[in-house]
């Protein structure tokens, strides 16, 4: 039983409400315009002729000299397909591990009356701030035999303390009475986590999926040092290579080879579109979990 927020209109809308709503809508619309224009610009720019782009940097209202040259160039990259394949594998294997471990960790941190909670909390929190640095982490990956395998991208980020804390905050909001009655029915904690807690914190799980998913999607650094073969690289490294090769600011070899190709400008924007679109497609599915309130019905039930 899911209840939506009751519509104020039906319950007698006051004049104050009307003013409130108009101001609110106006500000949000303004924000949308300010945000959307640069995004719109990026999209237009990715389809625009390079020469036009040079003199109209930062301002475009539609693609001028429409062409898909930048995308064609990106798609002819020999590693693009393997890049997409690798990130899909990483996501498919990582996300279940991430969510389950985060749920366990968040649940433990939310529990009361556990004797060793304080020291364990300390052990967990400590890793949030202190790390050994890049070289020891690299040697560790070699040591564990993960070098040049996709596991080197999956395992090091298996659970984020930050996300576990977010998960804990959500679990703490679930009334204790629910798990207590389950205990009385003879359920153990594993059952409680999956049967009782999980359905109640779905909005948070949706956010965590997004956080972890986008985290993997955007990550490139670990892949760049833990892998050796180009055909194991995830898509972000490939797009980064495209971006760097066409950017004087980042390309250290620019001193000699600074004759960049004719799509140099538009391809930077195409790379952004290629990175954003997949997330854009998945977002609405997760979004519906936190547009509607799912808590209330379940708590009552």
């Amino acid at each position, binding site marked *: 039983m899911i209840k939506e*927020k*009751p*519509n104020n209109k039906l*319950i007698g809308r006051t004049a*104050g409400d009307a003013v*409130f*709503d108009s101001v*609110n*809508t106006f500000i*949000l619309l303004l*924000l*949308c315009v*300010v*945000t*959307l224009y640069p*995004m719109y610009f990026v999209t237009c720019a990715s389809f625009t002729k390079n020469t036009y782009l040079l003199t109209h*940097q*930062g*301002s475009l209202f539609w693609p001028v000299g429409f062409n898909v040259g930048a995308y064609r160039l990106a798609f002819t990259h020999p590693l693009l397909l393997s890049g997409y394949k690798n990130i899909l594998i990483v996501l498919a294997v990582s996300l279940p591990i991430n969510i389950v*471990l985060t749920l*366990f*960790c968040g649940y*433990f941190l939310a*529990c009361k*009356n*556990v*004797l*060793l909670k304080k020291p364990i909390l300390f052990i*967990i*929190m400590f*890793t*949030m*701030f*202190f*790390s*050994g*640095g890049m070289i*020891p*982490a690299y*040697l560790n990956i070699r040591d564990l035999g993960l070098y040049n395998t996709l596991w080197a991208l999956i395992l090091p980020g298996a659970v984020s303390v930050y996300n*576990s804390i977010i998960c804990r*905050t959500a679990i703490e*909001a679930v009334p204790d009475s629910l798990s207590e009655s389950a205990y009385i029915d003879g359920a153990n*904690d594993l059952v409680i986590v999956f049967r009782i807690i999980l359905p109640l914190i779905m*909005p*948070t799980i*949706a*956010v965590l999926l997004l956080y972890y998913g986008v985290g993997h999607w955007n990550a490139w650094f670990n892949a760049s040092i833990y892998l050796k073969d180009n055909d194991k690289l995830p898509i972000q490294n490939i797009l980064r290579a495209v*971006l760097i090769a066409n950017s004087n*600011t*980042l390309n250290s070899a620019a001193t000699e080879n600074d004759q960049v190709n004719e799509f140099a400008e538009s391809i930077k924007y195409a790379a*952004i579109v290629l*990175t*954003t679109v997949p997330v854009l497609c998945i977002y*609405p599915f997760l979004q519906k*979990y936190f*547009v509607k*309130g*799912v*808590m209330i019905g379940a708590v009552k039930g």
Partner: protein
Amino acid sequence: MVASREKKELTLGHKLSRDYKLNKWKYVLILPVLVYLALFAYKPMYGLVIVFKNYKTTRGIAGSDYVGFMWFRAFFNDPYFFRLLRNTFTLSALSIIFGFPAPILLALMINEVQNTKFKRMVQTITYMPYFISLVVTCSIITIYCQQDGLFSNIAVLFGGERQNFLINVNAFRPIYVISGIWQNIGWNSIIYLAALSGIDMEQYEAARIDGANRFQQILHVTIPGILPTIMVLFVLRMGSILNVGYEKVLLLYTTSTYEVADVFSTYTYRMGLVNQQYSLSTSVGLFNTLVNVMFLVLTNYLSKKTTESGLF
């Protein structure tokens, strides 16, 4: 004497065994997390020891010489140290003061929208800038900041003068903070939206029956409902107060604005470029971390005292 200590140990042992019986499954659940941390966080942590060593990659961590607090001394004796500290702290504090409440405000505003379609649209649009790479964001900013750019046009409209804002010492911080808000406001509001969806609708009904208007509803129902989330995120944010990423600063600063823009991370970036000084950069990093932890503990303490919610 002996007897009482034995008794104490007995109680501790007793406590442990009782705890084990009661919470066995909880420990089973946390075990994989602990194993993960042991393997991937604690095992490589010996690397921190290089702050006391003169680390050379080829000699390895064990093989490099101990030098005591040499790197810390070098760092604290640097004539630029206080300028770096001031800039890092100011930039970060401004980002928190203006950047932290912004997504909360946005989430509250989105929450007040009745029309589901409009609601979804606003959310989808505002989170998108998060995915624009910094290189591109900063190049657009640079263009807008030029003498004949957008910002100059706006300034002229309000009676100001044409100028390049990126060489203006007073403009660097606003540019950095506002562009940061623009890029992250939507993405950071997602977590609050999720928290908002957890608030019991009956509380709103009760408030309305008591005659509360929309502002009062927000003040007395909505904000208390997401306060734990706000406080936890605030404490965590304070725990990264000295972390100002180098990439954006590098892309936006000019030689004219070093005075306000040079921060710890750009400093270590330059040190790294000159001489791959891992020992020095790790020392700066450790100093950063210690300050961060101090702020985290302090904020958490204050948060616990005032709102009764916090991190630990």
